[in-house]
Protein backbone atom coordinates (compact mmCIF):
# COMPACT_ATOMS: atom_id res chain seq x y z
CA UNK A 1 0.00 0.00 0.00
CA UNK A 2 1.20 3.51 -0.87
CA UNK A 3 -0.15 6.90 0.21
CA UNK A 4 -0.45 10.47 -1.15
CA UNK A 5 -0.14 13.77 0.71
CA UNK A 6 -3.86 14.27 -0.01
CA UNK A 7 -4.64 11.24 2.18
CA UNK A 8 -5.44 8.71 -0.51
CA UNK A 9 -4.21 5.12 -0.55
CA UNK A 10 -3.14 3.31 -3.70
CA UNK A 11 -2.74 -0.45 -3.83
CA UNK A 12 -1.02 -2.13 -6.77
CA UNK A 13 -2.83 -5.21 -8.08
CA UNK A 14 -0.62 -6.18 -11.03
CA UNK A 15 -0.88 -3.25 -13.46
CA UNK A 16 -4.02 -2.06 -11.74
CA UNK A 17 -4.19 0.42 -8.87
CA UNK A 18 -7.04 0.43 -6.39
CA UNK A 19 -7.66 3.85 -4.81
CA UNK A 20 -9.48 5.10 -1.73
CA UNK A 21 -9.04 7.58 1.13
CA UNK A 22 -7.14 6.68 4.28
CA UNK A 23 -8.56 5.83 7.68
CA UNK A 24 -7.01 9.05 9.01
CA UNK A 25 -8.81 11.03 6.28
CA UNK A 26 -12.22 9.48 6.97
CA UNK A 27 -11.76 10.05 10.73
CA UNK A 28 -10.90 13.71 10.19
CA UNK A 29 -13.55 14.34 7.55
CA UNK A 30 -16.22 12.58 9.67
CA UNK A 31 -19.42 11.41 7.97
CA UNK A 32 -18.97 11.07 4.23
CA UNK A 33 -22.40 11.82 2.77
CA UNK A 34 -21.67 11.90 -0.93
CA UNK A 35 -19.10 10.47 -3.34
CA UNK A 36 -18.80 11.42 -6.98
CA UNK A 37 -16.74 9.11 -9.18
CA UNK A 38 -15.39 9.31 -12.74
CA UNK A 39 -16.75 7.39 -15.73
CA UNK A 40 -15.15 4.03 -16.55
CA UNK A 41 -12.85 4.49 -19.55
CA UNK A 42 -11.80 8.00 -18.61
CA UNK A 43 -8.08 8.61 -18.93
CA UNK A 44 -6.53 10.49 -16.05
CA UNK A 45 -3.20 12.09 -15.29
CA UNK A 46 -1.28 11.78 -12.05
CA UNK A 47 -2.49 14.46 -9.61
CA UNK A 48 -5.63 15.31 -11.59
CA UNK A 49 -9.02 15.37 -9.82
CA UNK A 50 -10.99 12.17 -10.49
CA UNK A 51 -13.93 12.68 -8.17
CA UNK A 52 -15.22 14.39 -5.05
CA UNK A 53 -16.19 13.49 -1.49
CA UNK A 54 -18.54 15.51 0.69
CA UNK A 55 -18.59 15.63 4.48
CA UNK A 56 -19.39 18.37 7.02
CA UNK A 57 -20.99 20.47 4.26
CA UNK A 58 -17.76 20.63 2.29
CA UNK A 59 -17.02 19.08 -1.07
CA UNK A 60 -13.37 18.31 -1.82
CA UNK A 61 -11.50 16.54 -4.59
CA UNK A 62 -10.04 13.06 -4.95
CA UNK A 63 -6.89 12.98 -7.07
CA UNK A 64 -5.44 10.30 -9.31
CA UNK A 65 -2.38 8.79 -7.58
CA UNK A 66 -1.06 7.68 -10.99
CA UNK A 67 -1.74 8.27 -14.67
CA UNK A 68 -3.84 5.73 -16.52
CA UNK A 69 -7.39 4.73 -17.37
CA UNK A 70 -10.34 4.26 -15.04
CA UNK A 71 -11.34 0.59 -15.32
CA UNK A 72 -13.68 0.21 -12.33
CA UNK A 73 -15.58 2.50 -9.97
CA UNK A 74 -17.30 1.54 -6.72
CA UNK A 75 -20.92 2.26 -7.64
CA UNK A 76 -22.09 1.03 -4.21
CA UNK A 77 -20.79 4.31 -2.76
CA UNK A 78 -23.46 6.29 -4.62
CA UNK A 79 -26.13 4.92 -2.28
CA UNK A 80 -23.86 3.94 0.62
CA UNK A 81 -21.21 6.65 0.95
CA UNK A 82 -20.89 5.71 4.64
CA UNK A 83 -18.83 2.66 3.56
CA UNK A 84 -15.92 5.11 3.18
CA UNK A 85 -16.10 5.67 6.95
CA UNK A 86 -16.88 2.07 7.91
CA UNK A 87 -14.28 0.32 5.79
CA UNK A 88 -11.94 2.82 4.09
CA UNK A 89 -9.40 0.19 2.93
CA UNK A 90 -12.01 -2.43 1.99
CA UNK A 91 -15.57 -1.92 0.74
CA UNK A 92 -15.01 1.86 0.82
CA UNK A 93 -12.58 1.72 -2.15
CA UNK A 94 -13.37 4.27 -4.85
CA UNK A 95 -11.68 3.66 -8.18
CA UNK A 96 -9.46 1.13 -9.96
CA UNK A 97 -7.04 2.54 -12.52
CA UNK A 98 -5.07 0.69 -15.17
CA UNK A 99 -1.77 2.47 -14.57
CA UNK A 100 0.29 3.53 -17.56
CA UNK A 101 3.38 3.47 -15.36
CA UNK A 102 3.00 1.43 -12.14
CA UNK A 103 6.32 2.90 -10.94
CA UNK A 104 4.40 6.12 -10.24
CA UNK A 105 2.65 4.24 -7.46
CA UNK A 106 5.81 2.77 -5.94
CA UNK A 107 7.24 6.29 -5.68
CA UNK A 108 4.38 7.42 -3.38
CA UNK A 109 4.76 7.43 0.41
CA UNK A 110 5.20 4.11 2.18
CA UNK A 111 3.31 3.48 5.45
CA UNK A 112 6.12 4.89 7.62
CA UNK A 113 6.37 8.06 5.52
CA UNK A 114 2.60 8.52 5.60
CA UNK A 115 2.48 8.04 9.37
CA UNK A 116 5.14 10.73 9.61
CA UNK A 117 3.11 12.96 7.23
CA UNK A 118 0.08 12.82 9.54
CA UNK A 119 2.22 13.41 12.61
CA UNK A 120 1.97 9.93 14.15
Amino acid sequence: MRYTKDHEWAKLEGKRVRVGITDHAQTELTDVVYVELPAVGKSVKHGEPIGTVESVKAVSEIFAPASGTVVEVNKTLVNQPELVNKDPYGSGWMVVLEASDPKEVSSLMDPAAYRHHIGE
Partner: protein
Amino acid sequence: MLATTEGERPILIVRDAWLLDLGRRPYREVWEWQKSLVDRRADDRIPDGLILVEHEPIATLGRRGKREDVLDPNLEIVEVERGGEATYHGPGQLVGYPILKLPDRLEVKQLVTDLEEVLIRTCRDFGIEATREGPERGVWVGRKKIASIGLAVRRSVTFHGFALNVTTDLREFLKIRPCGHDGGIMTSMAESLGRKFDLEDVKASVIAHFQGVFGFTLRRVDVSELLRERPADPKRHRP
Protein backbone atom coordinates in the same frame (compact mmCIF):
# COMPACT_ATOMS: atom_id res chain seq x y z
CA MET B 1 -5.30 31.19 14.37
CA LEU B 2 -1.57 30.90 13.93
CA ALA B 3 0.72 31.39 16.86
CA THR B 4 4.38 30.68 17.37
CA THR B 5 6.87 31.25 20.12
CA GLU B 6 10.11 33.18 20.08
CA GLY B 7 11.84 32.41 23.32
CA GLU B 8 9.07 32.50 25.91
CA ARG B 9 6.93 35.11 24.26
CA PRO B 10 3.97 33.96 22.13
CA ILE B 11 3.65 35.97 18.94
CA LEU B 12 0.50 36.14 16.88
CA ILE B 13 1.17 36.08 13.17
CA VAL B 14 -1.27 38.34 11.38
CA ARG B 15 -1.46 37.72 7.65
CA ASP B 16 -2.61 40.15 4.99
CA ALA B 17 -5.69 39.19 3.07
CA TRP B 18 -8.16 40.98 0.82
CA LEU B 19 -11.80 41.86 1.36
CA LEU B 20 -14.11 42.17 -1.62
CA ASP B 21 -17.22 43.94 -0.34
CA LEU B 22 -19.58 43.77 -3.30
CA GLY B 23 -22.82 45.20 -1.96
CA ARG B 24 -25.76 43.64 -3.83
CA ARG B 25 -24.76 41.56 -6.85
CA PRO B 26 -26.40 38.78 -8.91
CA TYR B 27 -25.45 35.23 -7.90
CA ARG B 28 -24.09 33.99 -11.22
CA GLU B 29 -21.74 36.92 -11.73
CA VAL B 30 -20.18 36.43 -8.28
CA TRP B 31 -20.02 32.65 -8.82
CA GLU B 32 -17.91 33.22 -11.97
CA TRP B 33 -15.66 35.60 -10.04
CA GLN B 34 -15.25 33.03 -7.28
CA LYS B 35 -14.05 30.41 -9.76
CA SER B 36 -11.56 32.85 -11.31
CA LEU B 37 -10.29 33.83 -7.86
CA VAL B 38 -9.89 30.16 -6.87
CA ASP B 39 -7.60 29.61 -9.86
CA ARG B 40 -5.63 32.76 -9.13
CA ARG B 41 -5.27 31.78 -5.47
CA ALA B 42 -4.20 28.24 -6.46
CA ASP B 43 -1.51 29.75 -8.71
CA ASP B 44 -0.40 32.05 -5.83
CA ARG B 45 -1.15 35.15 -7.87
CA ILE B 46 -3.35 36.55 -5.08
CA PRO B 47 -3.37 35.99 -1.30
CA ASP B 48 -6.27 34.57 0.75
CA GLY B 49 -9.39 36.69 0.94
CA LEU B 50 -13.08 37.02 1.69
CA ILE B 51 -15.99 38.07 -0.52
CA LEU B 52 -19.02 39.62 1.20
CA VAL B 53 -22.17 40.08 -0.85
CA GLU B 54 -25.95 40.23 -0.81
CA HIS B 55 -27.70 38.45 -3.70
CA GLU B 56 -30.89 38.94 -5.68
CA PRO B 57 -33.44 36.16 -4.90
CA ILE B 58 -32.25 32.75 -6.13
CA ALA B 59 -32.28 29.08 -5.07
CA THR B 60 -29.02 27.16 -5.23
CA LEU B 61 -28.59 23.40 -5.08
CA GLY B 62 -25.44 21.88 -3.61
CA ARG B 63 -24.05 18.53 -4.80
CA ARG B 64 -26.78 16.59 -2.98
CA GLY B 65 -29.53 19.11 -3.74
CA LYS B 66 -32.72 17.88 -5.40
CA ARG B 67 -34.76 19.99 -7.79
CA GLU B 68 -37.94 18.93 -5.99
CA ASP B 69 -36.63 20.79 -2.91
CA VAL B 70 -37.39 24.01 -4.80
CA LEU B 71 -41.15 24.26 -4.50
CA ASP B 72 -41.78 27.54 -6.33
CA PRO B 73 -41.39 27.14 -10.13
CA ASN B 74 -40.81 30.90 -10.46
CA LEU B 75 -37.65 30.87 -8.35
CA GLU B 76 -34.47 30.75 -10.42
CA ILE B 77 -32.31 27.69 -9.63
CA VAL B 78 -28.55 27.26 -9.98
CA GLU B 79 -26.83 23.91 -9.46
CA VAL B 80 -23.42 24.48 -7.87
CA GLU B 81 -20.43 22.48 -6.63
CA ARG B 82 -20.69 23.25 -2.90
CA GLY B 83 -21.61 20.85 -0.11
CA GLY B 84 -25.12 20.75 1.29
CA GLU B 85 -28.51 20.70 -0.38
CA ALA B 86 -30.99 23.43 -1.37
CA THR B 87 -30.74 26.97 -0.05
CA TYR B 88 -32.11 30.41 -0.78
CA HIS B 89 -30.23 33.67 -1.18
CA GLY B 90 -31.84 37.08 -1.29
CA PRO B 91 -31.86 40.63 0.04
CA GLY B 92 -31.20 41.04 3.77
CA GLN B 93 -28.89 38.02 3.86
CA LEU B 94 -25.14 38.50 4.31
CA VAL B 95 -23.27 35.96 2.20
CA GLY B 96 -19.54 35.30 2.65
CA TYR B 97 -17.20 33.36 0.38
CA PRO B 98 -13.77 32.68 1.91
CA ILE B 99 -11.15 32.08 -0.81
CA LEU B 100 -8.48 30.36 1.28
CA LYS B 101 -5.66 28.01 0.35
CA LEU B 102 -5.69 25.01 2.68
CA PRO B 103 -2.27 23.53 3.48
CA ASP B 104 -4.04 20.18 3.92
CA ARG B 105 -7.41 19.03 2.55
CA LEU B 106 -8.43 17.72 5.97
CA GLU B 107 -8.44 21.26 7.37
CA VAL B 108 -11.80 21.81 5.76
CA LYS B 109 -13.55 20.53 8.90
CA GLN B 110 -11.73 23.11 11.03
CA LEU B 111 -12.65 25.77 8.50
CA VAL B 112 -16.36 24.99 8.91
CA THR B 113 -15.93 25.20 12.71
CA ASP B 114 -14.08 28.54 12.38
CA LEU B 115 -16.75 30.02 10.11
CA GLU B 116 -19.42 28.96 12.61
CA GLU B 117 -17.35 30.68 15.32
CA VAL B 118 -17.25 33.95 13.32
CA LEU B 119 -21.04 33.87 12.95
CA ILE B 120 -21.70 32.89 16.59
CA ARG B 121 -19.54 35.82 17.78
CA THR B 122 -21.32 38.15 15.36
CA CYS B 123 -24.72 37.11 16.70
CA ARG B 124 -23.43 37.61 20.26
CA ASP B 125 -22.40 41.20 19.41
CA PHE B 126 -26.08 41.91 18.82
CA GLY B 127 -27.32 40.01 21.86
CA ILE B 128 -28.32 36.79 20.07
CA GLU B 129 -27.20 33.53 21.68
CA ALA B 130 -26.39 31.24 18.77
CA THR B 131 -24.86 27.73 18.86
CA ARG B 132 -23.68 24.85 16.66
CA GLU B 133 -26.37 22.62 18.16
CA GLY B 134 -28.64 21.63 15.31
CA PRO B 135 -29.37 18.60 13.13
CA GLU B 136 -26.50 19.62 10.83
CA ARG B 137 -23.56 22.00 10.58
CA GLY B 138 -24.46 25.69 10.55
CA VAL B 139 -25.47 28.21 13.21
CA TRP B 140 -28.63 27.79 15.24
CA VAL B 141 -30.79 29.89 17.54
CA GLY B 142 -32.87 27.45 19.55
CA ARG B 143 -34.22 24.97 17.03
CA LYS B 144 -34.02 27.40 14.14
CA LYS B 145 -31.21 27.92 11.68
CA ILE B 146 -29.87 31.46 11.36
CA ALA B 147 -26.87 30.74 9.13
CA SER B 148 -26.06 28.03 6.61
CA ILE B 149 -22.67 26.76 5.50
CA GLY B 150 -21.71 25.01 2.26
CA LEU B 151 -18.17 24.86 0.93
CA ALA B 152 -16.20 23.49 -1.96
CA VAL B 153 -12.46 22.95 -2.29
CA ARG B 154 -10.78 23.00 -5.69
CA ARG B 155 -7.00 22.83 -6.18
CA SER B 156 -6.72 23.16 -2.35
CA VAL B 157 -8.60 26.50 -2.42
CA THR B 158 -11.97 26.99 -0.73
CA PHE B 159 -14.98 28.72 -2.24
CA HIS B 160 -18.71 29.07 -1.59
CA GLY B 161 -19.20 29.70 2.14
CA PHE B 162 -21.85 30.97 4.53
CA ALA B 163 -25.17 32.80 4.46
CA LEU B 164 -26.31 34.70 7.55
CA ASN B 165 -29.94 35.80 7.64
CA VAL B 166 -30.02 39.37 8.93
CA THR B 167 -33.31 40.79 7.70
CA THR B 168 -34.06 38.11 5.08
CA ASP B 169 -37.76 37.82 4.23
CA LEU B 170 -38.25 34.39 5.82
CA ARG B 171 -41.34 33.70 3.73
CA GLU B 172 -38.92 33.17 0.82
CA PHE B 173 -37.59 30.03 2.52
CA LEU B 174 -41.08 28.51 2.27
CA LYS B 175 -40.48 28.36 -1.49
CA ILE B 176 -37.77 25.74 -0.93
CA ARG B 177 -36.90 22.87 1.42
CA PRO B 178 -33.66 24.19 2.93
CA CYS B 179 -31.31 21.19 3.34
CA GLY B 180 -34.41 19.01 3.03
CA HIS B 181 -36.19 20.66 5.99
CA ASP B 182 -39.46 22.57 6.06
CA GLY B 183 -38.75 26.22 5.18
CA GLY B 184 -40.10 27.26 8.59
CA ILE B 185 -36.87 26.01 10.19
CA MET B 186 -35.05 29.19 9.13
CA THR B 187 -34.80 32.33 11.23
CA SER B 188 -33.04 35.68 10.97
CA MET B 189 -31.38 38.15 13.32
CA ALA B 190 -34.36 40.48 12.88
CA GLU B 191 -36.81 37.73 13.83
CA SER B 192 -34.68 36.56 16.78
CA LEU B 193 -34.67 40.01 18.36
CA GLY B 194 -37.87 41.42 16.89
CA ARG B 195 -36.16 44.55 15.67
CA LYS B 196 -34.68 46.06 12.53
CA PHE B 197 -31.04 45.64 11.55
CA ASP B 198 -28.71 47.52 9.26
CA LEU B 199 -26.80 44.96 7.19
CA GLU B 200 -23.73 47.24 7.25
CA ASP B 201 -23.52 46.99 11.07
CA VAL B 202 -23.64 43.20 10.89
CA LYS B 203 -21.07 43.20 8.09
CA ALA B 204 -18.64 45.23 10.23
CA SER B 205 -19.01 42.67 13.01
CA VAL B 206 -18.44 39.72 10.62
CA ILE B 207 -15.30 41.41 9.24
CA ALA B 208 -13.92 42.00 12.75
CA HIS B 209 -14.52 38.41 13.85
CA PHE B 210 -13.26 36.92 10.59
CA GLN B 211 -10.00 38.79 11.19
CA GLY B 212 -9.88 37.65 14.80
CA VAL B 213 -10.67 33.98 14.24
CA PHE B 214 -8.45 33.56 11.16
CA GLY B 215 -5.63 35.93 12.14
CA PHE B 216 -6.03 38.11 9.06
CA THR B 217 -5.81 41.81 8.43
CA LEU B 218 -8.32 42.43 5.66
CA ARG B 219 -7.59 45.11 3.06
CA ARG B 220 -10.47 46.34 0.92
CA VAL B 221 -9.97 45.80 -2.79
CA ASP B 222 -12.19 45.98 -5.85
CA VAL B 223 -12.71 43.07 -8.20
CA SER B 224 -10.70 44.63 -11.03
CA GLU B 225 -7.65 44.74 -8.76
CA LEU B 226 -7.92 41.00 -8.08
CA LEU B 227 -8.65 40.03 -11.69
CA ARG B 228 -6.39 42.63 -13.31
CA GLU B 229 -4.00 40.42 -15.24
CA ARG B 230 -5.08 38.08 -18.03
CA PRO B 231 -5.86 34.55 -16.83
CA ALA B 232 -2.77 32.34 -16.92
CA ASP B 233 -4.61 29.43 -18.46
CA PRO B 234 -6.49 30.15 -21.72
CA LYS B 235 -8.48 26.88 -21.35
CA ARG B 236 -10.13 28.29 -18.26
CA HIS B 237 -13.40 29.20 -19.96
CA ARG B 238 -13.86 25.91 -21.79
CA PRO B 239 -16.81 23.87 -20.54
